[in-house]
């Protein structure tokens, strides 16, 4: 370029490059909220959404994990039809529903009056008593199951000892309680007793939890209502029936929903009590146990996934029913 050309050419304006800090500032930090909530979405996607969608995908495939992802074979609804027609699955669903009712209903029927009793009769020592009731919920399921396995032991268990003591109690030549209590040790591992034993352990573990839930709901009921009812002439049981119970309905819905979900996914207690086998004649095998055994013992992840979605549908249906029964009426 000649010196003449450069002399007539207009000067080029220098564009100053902005620093990263300046550019971020200029953007008004609009992206900042997304950045801060992104860890949740990242974790949810990896550990929540992906397994959910993958299990749905898997439920329509036959897959042996050891052979890698490429070994997946599309089977349509075969896994579902297989699971639904499988005797063992049907037994496990029956066991699960039996346990859900036998362990679940008493939890609430006993927890509500128990919470009312704690609410009205304990003042200073209330928290200690609540702590005691809550203890089983925070204790290891393994420890609880082992303790109860010992308690229910045929030859040395305390339950048999108490029962047979009562059954063999005599007045003269008569055993007045023999019609109610056994006179010989019961083998609790027999199929007809397995579910009862598991139901009792589950009930014992969760009744305190439900008591705490109902107690917390009772504490939100205004004291004025009870005073008004007292002046209106309502006796204590009438106050419980006409005020406490209806006012607990939102909590009942919540607690029963938790029980439905928890009991239909029941795994740890029956697994440990039956030594992971489901017990004699599969009497203690729940749907969750069956799903686990299908996946991790038999290696059939497709059917296990289908079972999980059938269980999901069952839980959703029962929760809908619970909502109809106890949910808020519009």
């Amino acid at each position, binding site marked *: 370029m000649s010196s003449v050309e450069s002399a007539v050419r207009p000067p080029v304006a220098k564009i100053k490059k902005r620093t990263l800090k300046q550019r971020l500032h200029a953007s008004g930090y609009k992206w900042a909220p997304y950045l801060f909530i992104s860890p949740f979405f990242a974790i949810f996607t990896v550990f929540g959404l992906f397994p959910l969608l993958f299990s749905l995908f898997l439920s329509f495939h036959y897959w042996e994990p050891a052979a890698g992802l490429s070994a997946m074979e599309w089977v349509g609804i075969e896994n579902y039809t297989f699971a639904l027609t499988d005797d063992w699955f049907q037994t496990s669903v029956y066991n699960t529903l039996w346990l859900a009712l036998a362990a679940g209903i008493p939890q609430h029927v006993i927890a509500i009056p128990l919470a009312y009793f704690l609410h009205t009769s304990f003042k200073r020592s209330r928290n200690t008593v609540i702590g005691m009731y809550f203890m089983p919920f925070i204790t290891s399921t393994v420890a609880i199951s082992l303790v109860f396995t010992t308690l229910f032991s045929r030859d040395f268990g305390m339950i048999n000892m108490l029962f047979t003591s009562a059954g063999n109690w005599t007045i003269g030549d008569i055993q007045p309680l023999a019609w109610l209590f056994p006179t010989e040790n019961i083998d609790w591992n027999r199929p007809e007793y397995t579910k009862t034993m598991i139901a009792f352990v589950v009930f014992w573990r969760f009744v305190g939890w439900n008591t705490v839930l109902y107690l917390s709901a009772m504490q939100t009921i205004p004291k004025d209502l009870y005073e*008004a009812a*007292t002046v209106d002439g309502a006796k204590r049981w009438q106050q419980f029936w006409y005020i406490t119970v209806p006012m607990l309905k939102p909590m009942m819905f919540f607690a029963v929903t938790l029980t439905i979900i928890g009991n239909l996914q029941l795994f740890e207690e029956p697994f440990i009590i039956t030594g992971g086998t489901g017990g004699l004649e599969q009497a203690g095998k729940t749907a969750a146990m069956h799903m686990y055994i299908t996946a991790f013992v038999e290696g059939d992840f497709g059917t296990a996934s289908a079972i999980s979605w059938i269980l999901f549908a069952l839980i959703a249906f029962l929760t809908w029913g619970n909502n109809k029964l106890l949910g808020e009426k519009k």
Partner: protein
Amino acid sequence: MAAVTFNNLKKRFGKTEVVKSFDLHINDGEFVVLLGPSGCGKSTTLRMLAGLEDISDGEIFIADELVNDLHPMERNIAMVFQSYALYPHMSVEQNIAFGLKMTGVAKDEIVKRVKYAADMLELTPLLDRKPKELSGGQRQRVAMGRAMVRTPEVFLFDEPLSNLDAKLRGSMRAEIKTLHDKLGTTTLYVTHDQVEAMTLADRIVILKDGYIEQVGTPKEIFEEPANKFVASFIGAPEMNMIPATIKKTGTISSLVFSDQHIDLPAVYAEDDLLCTLGIRPSDLYLHQRSIESETIGSVKADVIGVELLGSTYHVQCELDGARFIAEVAIADDVNADIDDKVELFFDISRIHLFNNETGKAILPQMN
């Protein structure tokens, strides 16, 4: 209907005594208001009468029957709570009928009484609604209906209007008054609102720190306060309190300020006694011509502020270090301004004198 008597009633919570020797007789059909600041023991007294609070000492009689140990239901009382205490899951009809249902009243009788109460309180169109679908005033009426249907001997109201806005409070006040006039039931009403007390009560009981300060008709309480507390508690704006000294020269008593004095028409036994002059702001005038009385007194005071409140002016004054207000009508030719010295006129028969030590009213000697 029944008379209610409290004999030396006391209530202690631990070591704290909140009601101290409460004595009162409420006549059959009378409307009595317990009035006092927070923590004076008025609600506790009401709750002891209702049976919701144990009695530490003393006796309560309803219709000559000792009710100390009776269950609330057996006392034949009905109570309206500050929060209304309506059962949220029940309809208006069920709320009103609840007490009758609990006491085993026959179904057709329940229907009849609910209808009567609903008609009287204009609740008939609302009978199927739940409390959350009602306004504050409607809820209040339901609470009153619930109390009414039980045809109690005594109605108890625990600050029933305190949750309502000012306008609604006025109309509900009138409804309560009308209801009492119609039913004629003995009523004990607790409030900290003096307007409610003045407008509703046959007699007012002023309480402070668990003691009764004065019992009287609204007019007596307003015009003849027994002590400094009652004088300043009743009236808005509250009674002006100005320090003074009573001096007696021969048979003439006068009220002496730092640089002025007023000769009193009545004679007081006290001489050279530090006291407090109490006078209501509405009893002070800027012109002598505004008062129709033979005993007119006046004091000169510094004006420290003038506020226009629509129909009246509040002229804020200071005398001997005490600040007070003269409430003068806008038509009263208000020509005072800040830093002016004004002469304030009043009818001497309207003043109150209080002993500084005891707080009690100082009364003139009887001739």
